[in-house]
């Protein structure tokens, strides 16, 4: 095969090619390089197309007298009124059929100019033009333009068609700034399935449209649709392979192998609807990636049922799609009827059975539980605002011991080497023996401790309201170093390699050398950072009171990306695989791509989400100030189950074994099974 002569082609814009290119290439390539098949400009009832690039592949300049002018008359019958649009091989005009002198019968006249230069190309264009004429002439459907006449004149060929007045859906989408209303889109889809059904059931052989896309669907003022541009429609003969044509983005995968079947039209219809509902042009996206993101991420009004219809139409393999346009229409009708009920967009799928789950056990203490429990060897440890640290039996919730301090405990404990470490609002960090609750050592500070301690390298790291970050020996409590951040530290530190990262009430995120406590870098955000950072993929992720979640380069603190929410981000993010999960005070739970910050899904609760998520076995567990513990599917954000407690949940859940534990401001610690009870 000769090297590609032309410059790079943009799939949805026409490249200005060398004049010689036209003749040297085969028809299959030729038709691919133009947005529309050669010789067939789009039939439009509206003003010239918005896509200025669709000027065909001929590079030669056209002179004025190649076009017909208003007033010219063809066949002594068709009086040209105005030029509508131009294509590579000809033009489309609005004309009046003067055979009916007393009425104004308007028609569309499609013109093809036969160029002399290359007879092969010319012949193929002519055949294509004639094919359109023949196909459309044999059809009789309200959504297909009627053919009135076909004739040759001088060096040109003409097709006279019903004039369709309205706007095509691509132009409509461009005019509107928002996604089109889903009820209308479903209605148009039903009408389109109707006409596709008609084409696919055509006798003796089905007709495959092959060029389904928004610009080929005209919307009339009365809301009815018309399918236009049958230039590349084809009589389907089973088993025969053709050339690869169609419009990239909307074409099904098998069309690239030359296979054109009715089910390809279904795929293209799915692609068209996807574009209308999400405003994402498939010609600008990587091909065949429709099912990669849930549609609800772009258009929350799309229900799970509608999403399922589109997913099936867009199945990669033909066998997995709707076998007929009729079946797709039946599913669409169900959705059309259902849209009378108010849709709950984001809480879509609920797993079988009720969406509530009962706790295995619960334990009540004397005040709010605001912290996150930790599970260690059959024991659950957590602090409460009643000044005590509790140790419970993980399986039953029975109390083993409790340790009383002189201040409320909002710091979450950690366990290392048979010792539980936790801070109290009485300004002291405690180290207590895991089995008995006997004190091992204490470390006093000059401020309340709300930050949660972290164990690493045989040391405990924690922050205090006295502005310092401390590094103390886990065995003895002896201080190794302390760092003065000049504002209270409520965020819990994260340790990764040589770095220790934490946030501060002055809005900065600090990275220190873990060994010496020396400052490595500092990143300033707009408001207090009380979220605790998490480190993954060489980045430190942390939320800020300025409503953003930040991804910072671990080595130098430079922000890589930032995701803005509408409320403070106090929740600490969690990374699992390539996804990052976190909550915001704007009531939402977010899931984004950890590398780029692109939103994957979000879930709306009814209160601020201060709690941090836990991910376990494809499920995200998180609490909300609306009192619920939620379990959401990690990939899609669909609700798996939830439980309502008696007060806000500000701490995070802990998952261990087959149980998830969470405390609530209703004074109670709950334990749930991660799998449904049989």
């Amino acid at each position, binding site marked *: *095969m000769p090297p590609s002569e032309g410059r790079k082609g*943009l799939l949805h814009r026409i490249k200005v090619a060398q004049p010689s290119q036209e003749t040297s290439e085969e028809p299959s390539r030729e038709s691919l390089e133009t947005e529309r098949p050669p010789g067939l400009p789009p039939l439009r009832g509206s003003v010239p197309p918005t896509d200025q690039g669709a000027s065909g592949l001929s590079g030669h300049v056209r002179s004025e007298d190649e076009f017909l002018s208003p007033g010219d008359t063809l066949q002594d019958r068709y009086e040209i009124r105005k030029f509508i649009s131009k294509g590579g091989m000809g033009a489309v005009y609005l004309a009046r059929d003067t055979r009916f002198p007393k009425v104004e019968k308007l028609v569309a006249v499609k013109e093809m100019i036969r160029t002399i230069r290359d007879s092969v190309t010319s012949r193929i264009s002519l055949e294509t033009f004639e094919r359109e004429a023949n196909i459309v002439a044999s059809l009789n459907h309200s959504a297909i333009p009627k053919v009135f006449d076909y004739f040759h004149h001088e060096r040109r060929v003409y097709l006279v068609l019903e004039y369709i007045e309205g706007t095509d859906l691509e132009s409509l989408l461009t005019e509107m700034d928002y996604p089109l209303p889903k009820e209308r889109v479903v209605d148009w889809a039903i009408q389109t399935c109707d006409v596709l059904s008609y084409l696919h059931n055509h006798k003796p052989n089905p007709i495959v449209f092959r060029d389904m896309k928004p610009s080929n669907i005209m919307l009339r003022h009365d809301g009815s649709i018309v399918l236009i541009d049958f230039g590349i429609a084809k009589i389907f003969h089973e088993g025969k392979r053709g050339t690869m044509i169609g419009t990239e983005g909307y074409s099904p995968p098998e069309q690239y192998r030359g296979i054109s079947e009715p089910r390809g039209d279904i795929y293209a219809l799915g692609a068209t609807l996807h574009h209308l509902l999400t405003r994402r042009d498939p010609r600008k996206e990587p*091909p065949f990636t429709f099912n990669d993101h849930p549609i609800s991420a772009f258009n929350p009004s799309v229900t799970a049922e509608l999403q399922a219809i589109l997913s099936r139409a867009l199945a990669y393999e033909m066998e997995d799609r709707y076998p007929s346009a009729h079946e797709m229409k039946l599913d669409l009708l169900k959705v059309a009827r259902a849209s009378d009920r108010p849709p709950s967009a984001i809480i879509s799928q609920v797993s079988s059975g009720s969406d509530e789950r009962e706790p295995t056990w619960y334990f009540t203490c004397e005040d709010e539980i605001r912290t996150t429990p930790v599970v260690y060897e059959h024991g659950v440890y957590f602090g409460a605002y009643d000044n005590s640290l509790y140790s419970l039996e993980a399986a039953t919730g029975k109390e083993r011991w409790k340790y009383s301090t002189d201040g409320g405990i909002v710091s979450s404990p950690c366990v290392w080497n048979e010792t539980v470490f936790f801070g109290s609002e009485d300004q002291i960090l405690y180290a207590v023996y895991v089995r008995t609750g006997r004190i091992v050592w204490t470390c006093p500070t000059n401020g309340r401790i709300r930050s949660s301690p972290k164990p690493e390298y045989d040391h405990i790291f924690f922050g205090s309201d006295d502005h310092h970050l401390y590094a103390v020996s886990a065995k003895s409590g002896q201080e190794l170093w302390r760092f003065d951040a000049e504002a209270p530290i409520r965020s819990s530190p994260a340790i990764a390699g040589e770095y220790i990262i934490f946030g501060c009430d002055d809005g900065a995120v600090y990275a220190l050398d873990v060994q*010496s406590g020396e400052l490595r870098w500092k*990143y300033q955000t707009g408001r207090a950072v009380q979220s605790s950072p998490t480190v993954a993929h060489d980045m430190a992720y942390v939320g800020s009171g300025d409503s953003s979640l930040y991804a*910072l*380069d671990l*080595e130098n603190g430079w922000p890589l990306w930032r995701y803005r929410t509408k409320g403070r981000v106090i929740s600490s993010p969690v990374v699992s695989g390539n996804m990052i999960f976190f909550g915001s005070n704007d009531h939402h739970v977010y899931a984004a791509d950890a590398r780029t910050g692109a939103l994957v899904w979000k879930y709306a609760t009814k209160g601020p989400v201060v709690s941090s998520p836990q991910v376990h076995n494809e499920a995200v567990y998180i609490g909300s100030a609306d009192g619920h513990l939620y379990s959401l599917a990690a990939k899609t954000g669909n609700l798996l189950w939830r439980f309502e407690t008696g007060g806000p949940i500000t701490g995070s859940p802990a998952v261990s074994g087959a149980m998830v534990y969470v405390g609530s401001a209703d004074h109670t610690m709950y334990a749930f099974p991660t799998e449904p009870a049989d």
Partner: protein
Amino acid sequence: MGIWDRLVRQATKSRQIPPQREQAVPKKRERGDPLEIGQATDIGKARSANEDAFLTLKSLIGIEPEPLPVGLLIIADGMGGHVKGKEASSTAIRVSSSVIVREILLPLLSSERTVAGSRPVQEVLTEAITAANHAISQLEGDPGTTLTSVLVMGHSAYVAHVGDTRVYYLHHGELRQITQDHSLVERLVELGEISAAEAQEHPQRSFLYRAVGQGTELDVDTHFLRLQEDSYLLLCSDGLWNQVPEKEMVEVIADSLSPQEACGRLIDRANDRGGEDNITLVVARVNY
């Protein structure tokens, strides 16, 4: 755990006496250029004009204990025929680099090392490419270009990219393609519709579904990678990767005395194999 062995030896807990660092292991190489950059472009043998453009910008902030290497590497492969393509690619280079210099390099130069810049890097790099997109859309005709940029700061490399110009990372003899081609053919190979060999000859092989200069909205791919000592970054247009197999690229780079020499030799290799397109490449060696 070496850190904590040192800890045990430590005399005092106070910050005033920082722990002694171990003597640095003497480096094999002499004190050389931490970030060595080579760059070259060639019209190839089949085209009548060179529509590629590139930019390299390097600075070394030489402050002890460690100098901070900073580099900006950009290549663009224009399309639209003759003058138009070249105009597109050079506009892309100029507009995008000026955004990056203004929003990242200047603040970097004017603030302390420990203070991180305020605007997210991916946002700035993306803004640079969308600014180029806007500028090119204003040009006459219908030109477009690919645009692939890499910002190096110390051991961090930030990539922003549109089109089928590529960034590779070479470390320990292993060449890894970092960017994804925005070409139809690439997607077909990914899905198993056609083989990589068929892709080489496919009639639509130079068709891009995403390029700069085409319209209002543009999706830019971003990547982030950590650079190791003794590794290479390679940026190249399809005039190179379409002609020269990856194994050969690795051999030539490893074999050359300098990145500049590697650039010259790779261009020769591409031309030896036909030189069907313009060839542009940038090779950066990380010596720190």
